């Protein structure tokens, strides 16, 4: 418990530290947040008359944003499912970013619902057990349950996994896997329940269609992963540094520090292994004769700070066990270097490519004078036959912060397929409504063509269609395998889906009214400022979560460097 508080305190502390880019970004978001708070204070005093809403159009841009953001939150499963069900390795390191985004999105959702309430002071009427909770009758009470439940689940999962990583401890399966699988089902449920808020209203034919639920999921799985693709690249960029000359030392060295190594290397002995075993208790399970055998070809190295053990792009056959000291692993991506992990006493580096015989994914260099055990791939394979050691090695293999282009391309195919399904479902709905023209289609007519001289939403609809279809075409072409075009498509997706689910779904449901009256809606300035404030708040939360999580994932912030 005390450890956890200490962990939280250090996370809190690190959120105040950053470079000028970080301070500018956080400062701007805070200023926008304050603008939003100011606008909300005005609304709190005057009432919802400061919005563009009316009795005729009684929900507006708040609920539109809410609906969109529930989708963003639900989209985290599109990272979780490949990793936990299909054991995808590329997305493994990134799943936590999806979960952190879900937390930020749910916080925004809760804020949007709160600012939409006429009587926010009476929120306690909604708390089960204290107020009067209309469950299971009201879909809104379901939404309260599923959203808060999803928030708790994700906060718990992220908190637990990061805490374990901080302590350099393997997460206990029973403490998180059941919650991860619950969260998968839960993510689908939050968006389905949100769709049912609308679908359940028999008096609103525009929403009262069973395809709205599937459409919600399809659009969520388009917009969410598109946002994740963009934010991952921002993370990749922000957590990397330009390649400095000092990082390139060893360029002149022959091979991976060969000259230096000759001086300090010697045959490894059982005594060296014993020192390693002190740091890695699982090693004790290995029988003595196996230990002896694996020493064949193993070297004991004394390396100086800055000395490179292995270099990205090369192929070599050994893995490196740190007995004493620290090794930092950096990966070069797009001309920048990023720390992917920090290896301390008792930990391995270079094991992945040693075992698979593939190219080195990153460059590992000693961060301080260190003692290293260099071990050939054959010996490592032999050691891995011991189950406990095998488990600890494979678990740590996953503990790298890799944001590879390959993982972005996996997300690309998710966005691509979801967008195709989304457009297809929309086409289904439009056909059903228009082909056999009946009373159901008045809101659709208003949305697409305008009705009785009113057409405020027509440009919104057509811009959403243009954005979505352009994005779909780009995503289907091979050119979206390049990041530049992929990013363009993602931006189009996010805006397209935002309009489709916001102005294009919430607002036309009210127009015309059930009595045929035409009253249009446009958000006011104050209403828009509140929305901007909440978005800034959400991005601020996401930024701070990332600021805390990234150093933990890189091994830079851990229990071993507590002061």
């Amino acid at each position, binding site marked *: 418990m005390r450890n956890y508080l200490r962990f939280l305190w250090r996370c809190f502390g690190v959120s105040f530290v950053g470079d000028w880019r970080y301070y500018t970004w956080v400062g701007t978001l805070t*200023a926008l947040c*304050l*603008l939003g*708070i*100011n606008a909300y*204070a*005005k609304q*709190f*005093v*005057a*009432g*919802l*008359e400061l*919005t563009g*809403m*009316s*009795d*005729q159009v*009684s*929900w507006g841009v708040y609920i539109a944003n809410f609906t969109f953001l529930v989708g963003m939150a639900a989209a985290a499963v599109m990272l979780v499912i490949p990793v936990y069900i299909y054991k995808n390795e590329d997305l493994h390191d990134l799943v936590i970013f999806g979960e952190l985004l879900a937390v930020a999105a749910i916080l925004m959702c809760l804020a949007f*619902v709160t600012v*939409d*309430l*006429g*009587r*926010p*002071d*009476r*929120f306690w*009427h*909604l708390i089960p057990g204290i*107020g*009067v*909770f*209309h469950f299971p*009758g*009201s*879909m*809104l*009470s379901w939404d*309260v349950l599923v959203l808060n439940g999803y928030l708790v689940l994700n906060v718990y999962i992220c908190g637990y996994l990061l805490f374990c990583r901080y302590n350099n401890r393997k997460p206990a399966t029973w403490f998180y896997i059941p919650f991860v699988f619950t969260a998968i089902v839960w993510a689908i449920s939050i968006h389905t329940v949100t769709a049912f*808020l609308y679908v*359940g*209203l*028999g*008096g*609103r034919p525009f929403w009262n269609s069973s395809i709205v639920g599937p459409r919600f999921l399809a659009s969520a799985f388009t917009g969410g992963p598109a946002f994740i693709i963009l934010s991952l690249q921002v993370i990749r960029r922000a957590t990397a540094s330009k390649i400095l000359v000092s990082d390139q030392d060893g360029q002149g060295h022959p091979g991976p520090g060969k000259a230096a190594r000759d001086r300090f290397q010697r045959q490894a002995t059982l005594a060296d292994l014993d020192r390693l075993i002190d740091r890695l208790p699982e090693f004790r399970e290995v029988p003595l004769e196996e230990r002896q055998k694996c020493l064949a070809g193993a070297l004991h190295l004394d390396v100086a700070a800055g000395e490179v053990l292995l270099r990205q792009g090369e192929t070599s056959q050994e893995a490196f066990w740190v007995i004493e000291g620290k090794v930092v692993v950096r990966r070069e991506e797009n001309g920048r270097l990023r720390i992917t992990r920090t290896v301390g006493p008792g930990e391995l580096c270079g094991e992945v490519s040693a075992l698979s015989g593939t190219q080195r994914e990153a460059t590992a260099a000693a961060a301080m004078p260190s003692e290293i055990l260099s071990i050939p791939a054959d010996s490592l394979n032999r050691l891995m036959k011991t189950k406990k050691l095998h488990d600890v090695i494979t678990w740590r293999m996953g503990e790298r912060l890799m944001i590879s282009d390959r993982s972005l391309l996996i997300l690309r195919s998710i966005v691509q397929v979801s967008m195709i399904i989304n457009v297809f479902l929309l086409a289904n709905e439009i056909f059903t409504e228009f082909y056999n023209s009946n*009373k159901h289609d*008045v809101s659709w007519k208003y949305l697409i063509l305008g009705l009785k001289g009113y057409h405020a939403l027509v440009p919104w609809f057509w811009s959403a269609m243009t954005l979505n279809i352009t994005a779909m075409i780009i995503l289907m072409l091979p050119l979206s395998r390049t990041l530049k075009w992929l990013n363009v498509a993602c931006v189009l997706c996010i805006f397209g889906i935002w309009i489709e689910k916001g102005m294009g779904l919430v607002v036309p*449901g*009210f127009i*015309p*009214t*059930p*009595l*045929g*009256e035409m009253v249009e809606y446009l958000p006011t300035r104050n209403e828009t400022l509140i929305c901007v404030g909440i978005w800034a708040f959400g991005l601020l939360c996401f930024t701070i979560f990332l600021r805390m999580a990234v150093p933990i994932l890189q091994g830079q912030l851990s229990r071993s460097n507590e002061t």
Partner: protein
Amino acid sequence: MSRRSFLRSTALLSAGVAAVAAGLAPLRKLGEFGSVDEFLQKYYKELTPEEMKAVIARIEAEVERQYGIRPHVRDYKPMNGVEFVYALNLTRCVGCRKCVHSCVAENNQSRNPEIQYIRVLKMPNDGTFDVDKGDHNYAPKSVPEPGFFYMPVQCQQCKNPPCVKVCPVKATWQEPDGITVIDYNWCIGCRYCEAACPYFARRFNFTTPSIPKEQINTNMSYLGNRPRYKGVMEKCHFCTQRTRAGRYPACVEVCPTGSRKFGNILDPESEVSYILKTKRVYVLKPELGTLPRFFYYFDI
């Protein structure tokens, strides 16, 4: 901590505090907060008779403070063996909107912004009976106009009310006499009921209602016409302050053509029972299964 970093963090901190204070500045105009008692008031159905007495006394004091006039608030209960039903004769209705105005006066509806429970639609006599063709804002020199009939719409007091189903806090419910009421002290203002209503019968207080002191109707009921708060829903409640005391709703009383009929459907001798037995009646949007207690009929 060095002098420089101390000065810097002090400056940052005070700038932050100033910014937050500036952000929250509009709250100074909040005026008086609702009382703690109002904030903590229990749900209507959970109030004991004593607690209800205290609540009513508090509400009377609130109304007096706000409007400068002492009201008489009662918690009118439904009568046994009574289920109210409304019948409206579309042949007779001339669209004069007297019902709309008497309703506003009787039920202490906000004059600014204007809130009205009854919406009268001017419909063309073209055989379509399509509300989408209705005119909500007709304003001729005199009514009725040839070629049109008039259809007033208000809360249909459904037997299967969608608005009650969706309320997340049960702030609106159906009483044994068939009236769907709202506890203005329990509603959280989410407006889900307004989205659910297929008859555009519900109204929201987008701001604090305003009623001139001399126009206040001091005969008030807790679930009915007492003044509402900012941020809560309201709607037609068949004038509970009148009908539960044996009188007609204001709209029935004022109708100059006798188009509006009201009574107890459980009493076979009542006027509405007679109409339902002898006239061809219909309800709005029967396909939704809301089962309105508000019937329309024609003489011819």
